[in-house]
Each structure stands twice: as C-alpha cells, then as structure tokens.
C-alpha cells in the first residue's frame, strides 16, 4: 500500500482522535522538559520528589483495593457498580462513628493500637459487606435480565440513597478519625523517609491484594467466582449456585473496600458521607486502566493512577506554566480515564472485552 492509499483509508474520526492523542502527548513532553531542564515553576528537591512518589504509591494502593470491587463485579455481571464508592464510605463512616470514636475516648486506642486497628477494620469490613449485600439483593438481583441501562440506573439510585441515608444517620459534618500515636511521624527505610501512615497503607494494601489474589486463585469459592465470570449458564450446570456466588463477589469486593476505607481514614484522618464519590470514580479509572475484569490489572492500574496523580501536576502541569497545578489533580486522573477508554479500552493487561461485551 502506498502512503496516499493508506491516508485515504483513515476516516476523519480516527484522524481527529490521532490529533487529540498527539496534542496530549506533546503537552506532557513539553511540560516535563520545561520542568526538568528549564526549571519552570517551583523548585523541588530530591526528597520532595520522593515524597510525591511515595504518597502517590500509597494512594495508588488504596485505589487498587477499591478498584477490585469494580473489577470483580464487572467480571461476573458486566455492569459498573456505581454504588461501590458508597460501600467504601459506609464502612469508613460507621466504623468511625460507632467504634473508633468510642475506643479512642476510652483510651483503648493508645493502649492496644494493633487490636484497635483490627477491631476498627473488622467493623468497617462488616458494614461495607452488609450494605453491598443489601444493595445487590434489592437493586441488582431482580434486574439481571433487564436491559443493561436499567441496573446502571438503579446503581446510581443506590449510590444516592446510601449517601443520604448515612448522612441522615450520622449527620452531615466531617468526622475526625482517631489515629493511634504509634502511626504519627516519619519512618526511614533504606535511606528514604516516609510518612508512617503512608508506609503502613502501602504495605497493608499490598498484603490485602496478594491475599485476595490467592483467595480467587486457590479456594473453591474463588474458583466458583471465576467460573461464573466465564459463563453463568455452564457454571449452573456444574452445580454452582450462581446467585450465591454473585453475592459472594459483592461481599468480597465490599470487604476490600472496607479495608481501604480504614486505611483512607488513617491517611486523611476524617470520614464523611460524601467521601465515597471521588475515590469511587478514581478507583473505577484504576480498574479500567489496568483492564477491567482483571485482578492484577486493578492492582497495577491503581498504583499507576496514584503515581500519575501525585507526580503529574508538579511535573508536566507546572512545567506548562499552569498556576496552582495541584488543583488540577483530578483533571489529570479524569483525562487519563478518558484517554484510556478512547484508545485502549482493554487497559494495560486486560483482554479485549470492550467490543464483545460493552
């Protein structure tokens, strides 16, 4: 094929998308170059950059944990569980209000910080699971055979219902989350200094991710979940209770969100009824980024998203001379989401689901 023939073969939509892609890439490169070699904007030391990276990675670990819920549910039902962010919120808020505040007031928190963290996390996980199972039973299960738009709409409905339900239950103000004294301050590992909570968050989320992976790959329930994701009808024939397995998937995903909720509360030291929305969308971005339906993909996508979000604004946005670039953190994340969905809907390591099932 000659070049002209090739050019004629490209329709103008593809051309427009190519231009769009090129513009973004050029902007990123120009910004980075200007930042690193011409020194535009604030000057950062090596320690500053390490801080950006470490906080980005630990944030990414949280995104990854939440993203698991999206990815697993998408795996079995091919639906975006818009209410997943609320499962996360319900765990954080309930645990903060009912358990954490009581234990910190009684002084138990600083006497037994490890047990405190375990109790608080268990409370959050149980709440998130309960909310998820209830949502699945009421808003999703009766609509399995409905057109695809319908469960998405009930998911949006459930999301708002839970937000304002918890607001009614616990009030609308921001609740402080008590952090044990042992997690205050900094820690130095291999010559790099981290905030302690950031370090704990990253390690805890990595452990949770690995445990979940083992659960899915090694246990019988995990096998059932994979079978249902592969083909529901055949799974039924193999004697798998599909309804139960789907509920199980929701519960496991929500459990991960519950763990993420406590880690999130440790980092930001607060909980409120609206805290689920933005992490929810970000985590969905992470899931798509890694390839929705894939568990390692969600982990990778989460870490990558956290990193881009933390390093991106000071690197290329400031390099472009944008004032107060940190305000545009969310824009970086959402732009990444849009770009991924346009150009590589199968994600980093996902299989090509987009055309077949979307």
């Amino acid at each position, binding site marked *: 094929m000659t070049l002209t023939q090739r050019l004629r073969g490209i329709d103008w*939509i593809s051309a*427009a*998308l190519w231009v*769009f892609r090129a513009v973004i890439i050029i902007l990123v490169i120009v910004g980075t170059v200007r930042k690193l070699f011409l020194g535009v904007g604030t000057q950062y030391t090596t320690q500053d950059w390490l801080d950006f990276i470490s906080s980005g990675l630990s944030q990414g670990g949280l995104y990854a944990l939440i993203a698991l819920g999206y990815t697993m549910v998408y795996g079995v039902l091919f*639906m*975006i569980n818009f209410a997943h962010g609320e499962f996360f919120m319900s765990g954080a808020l309930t645990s903060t*209000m*009912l358990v954490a505040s009581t234990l910190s007031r009684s002084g138990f928190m600083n006497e037994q910080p490890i047990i405190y963290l375990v109790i608080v996390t268990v409370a959050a996980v149980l709440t998130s699971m309960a909310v998820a199972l209830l949502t699945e039973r*009421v*808003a999703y299960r*009766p*609509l399995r*055979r*409905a*057109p*695809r*738009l*319908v*469960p*998405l*709409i*009930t998911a*949006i*409905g*459930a*999301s*708002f*219902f*839970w*937000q*304002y*339900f918890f*607001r*009614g*239950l*616990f*009030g609308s103000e921001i609740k402080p989350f008590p952090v044990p004294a042992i997690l205050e301050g900094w820690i130095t590992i291999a010559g790099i200094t981290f905030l302690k909570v950031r370090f704990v968050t990253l390690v805890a989320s990595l452990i949770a991710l690995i445990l979940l992976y083992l659960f899915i790959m090694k246990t019988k329930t995990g096998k059932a979940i994979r079978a249902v994701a592969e083909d529901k009808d055949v799974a039924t024939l193999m004697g798998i209770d599909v309804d139960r397995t789907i509920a199980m998937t929701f519960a496991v995903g929500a459990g991960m969100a519950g763990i993420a909720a406590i880690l999130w509360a440790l980092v930001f030291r607060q909980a409120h009824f609206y805290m689920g929305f933005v992490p929810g*969308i970000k985590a*969905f*971005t992470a899931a*798509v980024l890694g390839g929705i339906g894939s568990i390692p993909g969600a982990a990778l996508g989460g870490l990558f998203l956290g990193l881009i979000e933390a390093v991106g604004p000071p690197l290329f946005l400031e390099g472009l001379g*944008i*004032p*107060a670039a940190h*305000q*545009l953190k*969310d*824009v970086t994340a*959402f*732009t990444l*989401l*849009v770009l991924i*969905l*346009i150009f590589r*809907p199968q994600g980093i390591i996902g299989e090509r689901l*987009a055309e077949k099932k*979307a």
Partner: protein
Amino acid sequence: MTRKEWSHLIRIGLLMGLAVLVVSVIGMVEKFNERALIVGYLTLGQLLLYIPALYAGYTSVPAGEHRAMPQRLLGGVVVGLLAVMPVILLILVASSWPGIRSYFVNISPNMVKILTAGKGVGPGIGLLAGEMAALGLIGAAIHLIPDRIRKPIVTAIIFTVGFALFSDVSLNIANQLFARKTVRVLFGTKGITPLATVIVFVISLVAASLWTWKGREAYARRQANMSSEQAKRSQRIATTVLMIVLLTLPWVLGVFLTDVLDRVGIFILMALGLNIVVGFAGLLDLGYVAFYAIGAYVTAIMTSTGNLGMGLSFWLAVPVAVVAATMAGIILGIPVLRMRGDYLAIVTLGFGEIIRVLVRSDLLKPVIGGAQGILNIGRPTIPGLTFTTPQHFYYLILLACLLAWFISGRLRDGRIGRRWMAVREDEDVAEAVGINLVITKLLAFAMGAAFAGLAGSLFAARVGTIFPNSFELLISINVLCIVIIGGIGSLPGVVVGAFVLVGLPELLREFDEYRMLMYGALLIIMMLVRPEGLWPSPITRREMHAAEENAAAVEAEHSSDIRAAVEG
C-alpha cells in the same frame, strides 16, 4: 392459617417495621413533623409513620383474594403490630440512654416525643401500637369493601391528602381571590383546617363516585362515537384552553409559585435535550451539565456589566451561547463515538468533572472568575420592558420550552428520529442498513447540547449571578432522573418528570434535606416496578411489555425443553 401464610405476614410486617425504623432514625419523621397536613390533627411526619402500617395491612391479604375473612383481619392487626416493634425498641433505647445521640445525630428526645405523641414512654408506646394495629386492620379491611365503593373513597382520601400537602399552592391562589378572613378559616400557616379537610373530602368523594359509577363509561362512549372531525375539533379546543391556562398562570399563582414554575421550566428544557440523547438515541450521557454550564457562562461573560463581562445584549448572547454549547457537544461527542453503554456514561461523567474542576481552578480564573463566579449578569430587555420578575421570565422560559417541545416532536417523527431509534435499538444493524453512525450520533449530542445551552443561558439571565456551585454533577443526575422517571423517550413524560422531581421538592421545602435520598429510592423502585416511567411513550411501553413476554416465552420454552429432555 398455614405456616406459609404466617411467614408471609411476618416478612411484610418486619419489612415495614424496618421502613418505619429507618425513617425515624435518619430524622425524616422529626423533620416532616414540622409540616402540618390537617392543622392540629395530622402532620406529614405522622403520615410517614402510618403509611407503612397501612400498606402492610393492605398487602397482608394475598393478591386475588378479596374476600377478607376474620383471619385476614387478624393478619392485618398482626402486621400492624409487627411494623411497630422495631420502633418501639428504638423508643425504649432512646429514652433510657440519652447518650445515643452522640452516635446517631437524629435520635433526639424530640423524635421520641413525636413517636409517643408527647404522652410519656409507657402510654405513648401503647398508643402508637394501638394506632398501627388499627391501621393494619384498616389496610386489610379495605379488601372487604366492594370495588364500586372502595375506589371513590380511596381516590378521595388520596386527593385530600395531596391537597393538604400542596396547601401552599391553593393558599397562594386563595390569597389573591378571597378576603383574608375567609382564607384563614380554610388554611393554617402550614396545612389545612379540619373544616377544609371535610369540604375537600366530600367534594372529591362526590366527584370520584360520579366518575366511577357514570362518568368513565359515558366518557368512553363519547370518545368511541366521535367522528375524526369532532375528535380533531375537541383536541383543538383542549390545546387552546391549555394555552390560555399557561399564559395566565403566573398572574393566578403569584410570584413565589411562578418562580417555582421557572425552575421547573429550565429543567424541562434541559430534560427535553437529554431526552434526545438518552431517550431517542440511547446514548447515556452523565456529563450533560457541562453544556448547561457553557451556555450559562457564555451568556454571563457576554452580558455582565461587571469587570469580567462585555455588557452586550442578552438577545445577542443567547444564539452565541447555544452555538457554543452545540460546538462543545460535537467536540466532546467525537471521542466517544465508538463507545457504548456504561463506558460512554463514565467518559461523559469524566468530561463533566473535568469541566467542573476547570471552572473552579485558578487556571481559568481571569476569564470566568473561579469560585467567585460572575456577577451583574445583564437582564434581557425589549422596548418598554426589562425582564426582572419571575413572571417576566416565565414567558421567556415558556416560549423556549414550547420551541424545544415542538423541535423534539418534529425531530422524533422525522427521518433523523427514526435513525436515532435505530441506533438505540442496535448499532450494528443500524450501520448495516446504511445509517451513518457518526452523523446520527453527533446530531443527537449537538441537539441535546443546544437545548442545555439555551437552558443555561436563561438560567444565567434569571438569577443574575452564577457560581461554579450551580453546575455540579447533581444537575446531570437530576436531569437524567427526570427523563427516566418521566418515561424515557416521551415528551409529556419529561414534563411530568420535571414537575415531580423539581416542582414537588420546591413546594415541599421540608423535603430538601432528604431530596436525594428519595430520588435514589425512587430510581430503584421505578426500575423495579415501572421501568417504562410515569408517562411512557407508546413505543417504550410496548417494548417493555414485549421484553417481559419474551422472557416468559423463553422461560416456558426452556422448561418445556428441559422437560422434553428429561422425559425423552
């Protein structure tokens, strides 16, 4: 009664009990109690407690069995009592442990007082249990009454409650027509007096009985006997009457209610636009607020007399705003052309959020004012009149809505409408029969965006000041809810949806805090029991039922297949 029947009763009773508990714990009962329905006798909060018990009693009788035997009545009492159990527990806990309030903000002494009717814990619980049991009994006993009598009574009760709920509307009208003294006899500050209740109930009962016994048949007969000529004429008369009503409405309703109408009108305009995108073309767009914001900001910048504005005329700004929104619709439409379903929803949501963050950021602050917004937006003027009051804007908005309605209807019935629906049903097939997907989809995005731009433009002129806060994601969700709850793809549905979802909460200020909660619940309930919406288009209705029938047919086929396989 059999064991199965008992478990049915227990399930309903406890479910409704849970409902009562939830509305109490999240503070709805307390908040709604501020609103009287019948002064001195019934508040909205009490109604909220009573409805679940009544409903439990009503559903305790299995469907199809209208002959209510003594056992059924007993069942009603049982579910009523079950429905009150959780909340009795709540009263006991709350009254013996005041500290619970530091955990659950809305479990207050005042709530306990409302639940026990201020009679102390012991007698209060007895009273509440008695009331709920009685309501369960009434709910079950409704089945005893023959249809002919039951229907008018139920209609009259619902109408009376509705009248009391919206007493503000009639109060506003009455204030303009009658002397203050007369009005005071019928209306309290919030709610209606017992006298008015009786009057409204009797009138509506008579009307409803006449309609049920005679009117409906006579009407159907007349409809059937009408020649096409007559039918056309009666339709024309109806349209004329409607137009006259619409034109005189603001002067009957007064300033406050007209302002509510204006808000509803702007949402109708937006929803008509989104209806093209979601309803006709089937493209789920969650970032719709972006176009509304663009319309509003373009108008603001062009007409503002403040330091960010250019001080131009509103009439010049409107077309520019609409064109700008349309262009934005096309530009944001191009990248998502190849996406479907929920991916599309998420990307458009992402676009909406990007625009929201950008509007707020320092990056665009020199142009659009950041969080401080734009002040002193110019008012529209025509020779001899500057549009300032809600009544003035009402006509402008009405005009825009009628225009949008007309355009929507023509587009739907035209070639492009067919193409949109083909794309909605099946993109691949649509493409295979020669429909240009790119043009078809972009036209849908462009039309939707144009309506939103117009709505934004009117909004900016009406409020005079705009802030980024006015363009949250909630607006997109609101408009989507209007389209879906009204009836996806249906023009009258959009109007009904806007009145239900925007008009009602404006009138019932008490709802404000719980508006989103009820939206959420409404969306779910709607999808479960009436997915085609309140006023569906004939096509959607047919489809929804076809889907059900298909599913039933497939099920039947399946089971017969299996049976055949087993037997064979």
